[in-house]
């Protein structure tokens, strides 16, 4: 099952079976944001705690398919403890990796120049690269990332 092995890499299955940073943070002080995929019913709940310009802690709740849940778990491991600026940078890089097919599908809404994607920089997240071969599943992979970006924006808006 050639293509399937690209989609369901061992790292992805591992994060699906044993999701990291699972749960919810007390809100407040944490900020809580929900992401829904209305087409399939997948949902993800991201609670995040921003302190001194850093994403001090975050937890992931919700349920869904292996791609949406493993992507959320991988994301949580990658962004926890990083500065908010670094997190936004990573979100852009990750969505860049996922946007190849979104552009083909006509869902492109980014006005910025596409970034040159340094897959090395993505570490374990690069395992999700195979998702772009399955355009329908890109929305599963980006669900938690969109929720995180929305959450960070909301936190910034509250602070200003």
């Amino acid at each position, binding site marked *: *099952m050639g293509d399937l092995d690209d989609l*369901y890499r061992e790292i992805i299955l591992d994060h699906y079976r044993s999701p990291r940073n699972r749960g919810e943070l007390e809100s407040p002080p944490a900020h809580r944001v929900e992401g829904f995929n209305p087409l*399939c*019913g*997948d949902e993800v709940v991201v609670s995040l705690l921003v302190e001194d310009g850093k994403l001090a802690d975050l937890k992931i709740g919700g349920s869904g398919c*292996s791609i949406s849940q493993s992507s959320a778990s991988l994301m949580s491991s990658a962004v926890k403890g990083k500065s908010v600026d670094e997190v936004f940078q990573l979100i852009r890089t990750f969505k860049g990796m996922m946007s190849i097919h979104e552009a083909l599908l006509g869902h492109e809404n980014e006005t910025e120049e596409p970034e040159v994607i340094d897959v090395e920089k993505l570490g374990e997240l690069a395992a999700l690269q195979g998702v772009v071969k399955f355009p329908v599943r890109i929305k599963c992979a980006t669900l938690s990332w969109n929720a995180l970006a929305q959450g960070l924006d909301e936190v910034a808006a509250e602070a200003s």
Partner: protein
Amino acid sequence: MTALPLNVEALRKDFPLLTRTVHDRPIVYLDSASSALQPQSVINTMARYYETTHANVHRGVYATAEESTHLYEHARIMTGRFIGANEPEHEIVFTKNTTESINLVAHTWGRANLKAGDRILLTEMEHHANIVPWLMLAEEIGLEIRYIPVDGEGRLDLDDLSTLVAGVKLVGLSAMSNVLGTINPVTEIAAVAHSAGALVVVDGAQLVPHAPIKVTELGADFLAFSAHKMMGPTGIGVLWARKELLNAMPPFLGGGGMILDVKLDSFRPAAPPARFEAGTPPIAEAVGLSAAIEYLDEIGMDRIRAHELALTNHALARLDEKLGRDCRIFGPPAGADRGGVMSIAYRDVHAHDLAQVLDQFGVCVRPGHHCAKPLMRKLGVQATARASLSLFSDEHDIEVLIEGLLEAGRLFR
């Protein structure tokens, strides 16, 4: 199992899409509950219509315009006869799909006949198409909506029906669930509804394409269904209603074709069904629907039902035999009140992952909530992988389905 009632090998030759491969495997189409495939005759008939006849209907006096009008109105007669309507020319309204048909009832009959505080009764197994139009109307005018509950086997729990139906103006129910495959006792429920003074709107999207229906015996006052689930084209749906109901209903969309007369400050609506068909209708689609009905009639709806019932019973037994308790199928056990729709949960593999693995085997199933979120909540699942049968489905399709499910199990072990 004993031989299936239909000669599937011969019938498959009628469906060009079945000759293609997916990921180097022959396609196994188990998603007819979403949308059915079209036989060559439907495709050819529509192409021939565009090649030789196309013109707008009810307008021109030139030859092709007359022919086009005749074909469109002939489709109405064919559709009415297919469901046993007494007066097809007055009782069949063409819409866009089942959803629009139900919305039409809510917008016109609903607004004219329901007022704040009125009650309507739906069921917990309805498709969003038979819930959301009523919720929208409830928000607008203030209705109380009650629901007939679904029991543990996926049937409607009718124990309290007479209590639930008291004071209700309208009962809305699906003839067959698109998630559970349950074929509901519409006639029995309609009798109770009528004796309580309620009208009955039936979502026939799943049952009409798969079993013989006679509206004169069904007990419904409104019946909605779609052409694309019965091997016709997308873009055309049907609303059947009793003539006197349609006659008393205000128009739906406004525009050309639905009027008797228009002045700068007023208009007079046309008689049904034109009253409900504003603008240029789906003409080629109506012609395609006629061809689909011809195709189904030639095989015979009772034989199609017998074939799908036999294969459903076989599939349920075979899934149980090969996958045992790892495989959960929602809805009633094998039997006469079950259509060819099987919503599958396999081990703890998410429905999207199941469908993704099945795709590699060429198997087309639908993962998700099937536009029935209240029912899914009741069942306690987020999503299922739904396999649905057609007149060209056979035992081999079920074996490939099982092969794919086993592979998904290995991958996610």
